């Protein structure tokens, strides 16, 4: 009863572009989103290439050269309170600031995502226990929790990372659970079960593909918050410790210059602001691009 010749079945078929290819195509057409992506790429490059593009050593300072304004000879953006070159510290600062901002979110994405997807798929009392535990941490405002954890554990990069990761796990877990539960009740999951698929196979082939998108976008939207929180921790003296260059820490140490060279105080904040708004605009653009109405 075949209408086509048997070997035609192995021939080339029309392949539609996949989901992410379509998302990328739509994303490309949004100038704001592309601009944000470019900005982030520049900042990341700056961080990676820091040793080669920074004019000076960010740790070397001379007390004679303290708090020089931007435009001083050899120090295009001035010097900080210990005489170190601002430009170099800003460039190097990108490394730690980006690291402290992005890493907790990615760790939380893995851990929180796993918890949420498991809770959503299995359901029942497992779901209840996991989600209620998340709720307890959710009961703290994020800033408070981050500061409480860092404050208790003490300053330092590792402690800061841990506390920020803990702060972001509950919201990501919640989103993951909610999306997974939504997908799990759909007919195609039932159809996959009816075809004999086991839990692992179904999660891998049917659930993940449909669930990772929204979870990932949500996590991205947290990066801006994470950067502000991370730099906030350093600002308070938790998180990154001097003399490491990090934008939030720089804001703290430069407060003494508030009345003498106010521009110097503004600079690290501008960097945080630009990075943060770029991530926000990127996430907005990604969300619009992913909102494909069939």
């Amino acid at each position, binding site marked *: *009863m*075949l*209408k*086509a010749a048997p070997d*035609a*079945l*192995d*021939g*080339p*078929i*029309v*392949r*539609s572009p*996949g*989901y992410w290819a379509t998302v990328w195509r739509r994303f490309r057409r949004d100038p704001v989103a592309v601009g944000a992506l470019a900005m982030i790429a520049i900042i990341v490059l700056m961080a990676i290439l820091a040793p080669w593009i920074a004019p000076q050593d960010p740790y070397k300072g001379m007390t004679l050269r303290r708090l020089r304004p931007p435009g001083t000879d050899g120090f295009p953006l001035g010097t900080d309170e210990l005489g170190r070159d601002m430009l170099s510290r800003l460039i190097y600062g990108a490394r730690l600031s980006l690291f402290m901002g992005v890493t907790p979110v990615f760790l939380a994405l893995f851990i929180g995502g796993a918890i949420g997807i498991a809770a959503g798929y299995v359901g029942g009392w497992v779901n209840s226990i996991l989600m209620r535990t998340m709720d307890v941490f959710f009961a703290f405002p994020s800033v408070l929790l981050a500061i409480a954890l860092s404050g208790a554990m003490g300053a330092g990069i590792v402690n800061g990372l841990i506390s920020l990761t803990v702060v972001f796990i509950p919201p990501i877990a919640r989103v993951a659970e909610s999306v997974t539960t939504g997908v799990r009740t*759909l*007919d*195609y999951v*039932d*159809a*996959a*079960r*009816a*075809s*004999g*698929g*086991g839990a692992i*196979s179904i999660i891998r*082939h*049917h659930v993940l*593909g*449909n669930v990772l998108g929204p979870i990932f976008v949500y996590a991205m939207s947290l990066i801006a918050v994470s950067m502000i929180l991370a730099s906030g921790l350093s600002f308070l003296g938790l998180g990154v410790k001097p003399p490491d260059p990090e934008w939030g820490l720089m804001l703290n140490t430069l407060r003494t210059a508030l009345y003498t060279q106010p521009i110097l105080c503004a600079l690290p904040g501008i960097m945080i602001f630009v990075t943060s708004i770029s991530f926000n605009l990127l996430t907005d653009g990604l969300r619009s691009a992913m909102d494909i109405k*069939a």
Partner: protein
Amino acid sequence: MSTATLATETGQPPAAAMAPPALLEVRDLVKHFPMKSGLFGKAKAVVRAVDGVSFDVKAGETLGIVGESGCGKSTTARVIMHLIKPDSGSVRLAGRSPGAGGLTMKAFRSQVQMVFQDSYASLNPRMTVEDSIAYGPAVHGINGSDAVRRARRLLDRVGLDPLRFAGRYPHELSGGQRQRVNIARALALEPRILILDEAVSALDKSVEAQVLNLLLDLKDDIGLTYIFISHDLEVVRFIASRVMVMYLGRVAEIGPTEQLYGGGRHPYTQALLGSMLSMDPDRRTETAPLAGDPPNPINPPPGCRFHTRCRFAEAVCAASVPPLFVRGGDHAVACHMAAPGSGHSQAGAIS
């Protein structure tokens, strides 16, 4: 609380008189859904979706299942498929229950497949058509390229050109095309029984006709057995050889199509099938055949579920559950008026 049992009056289950044993035997299926309320989520009320359903499906036939919304048709289908675990009761395929007696759940699943109502929700939006169809065979151990080849052959079989459709995504297809894909997917495991749960209800009439014809062709070619669930009485009449009428989680009547449509014995069947509007101006429907609202399955009436809306209801109807009485051959009715000696004033009158 007694559940409806297959007839004891004649002493044998209805199909046993015929030679080939039933392909699918469903006995006393019960599924209740607790409704969570109260302080700690304790079940305060129970939705008695399926409350003692028994029937046989013979090899090669098409059994239609009809009834109003909420009567438990879809739940019965999902329980048969073991997508929902039954509270009690058994389902046997060629005499064996899945999970016992040498029939694994996986093997059972490869022999009984289902096509759902919502053609869009039944397909993974991130999987191409051929991948969706090939998933089942792949899970059962068929290697990748063979599974894909089988998928493409099936696409061709259901009337979709594989070269054009195999690499597409569900949102690019029309409703009718998606349902064809769903049928192809269901056939991928070479099942013996196909359950069609309102499979054509959401399609435009012309498309519906095409898909129905496809189903009939496939049935003849491959030798399938269908369970066709629908609320569209005309379609069921067209496609089914036997029909089962359900009401509030129980079987009201089951028998050959023309016998039921010609004038079923259960008052509900008469009301339901009698409520089909006719195009013949000489047969006008003056009064609505059914009075009252369908009660909800949370607090069903005691005894015979239908007695609150039945013209012939008597005391015995509220007191005890009517058993499924075999009138003869394939036809069985669950009504006190059917079984002689049931206590109803017209007992035996309709047998």
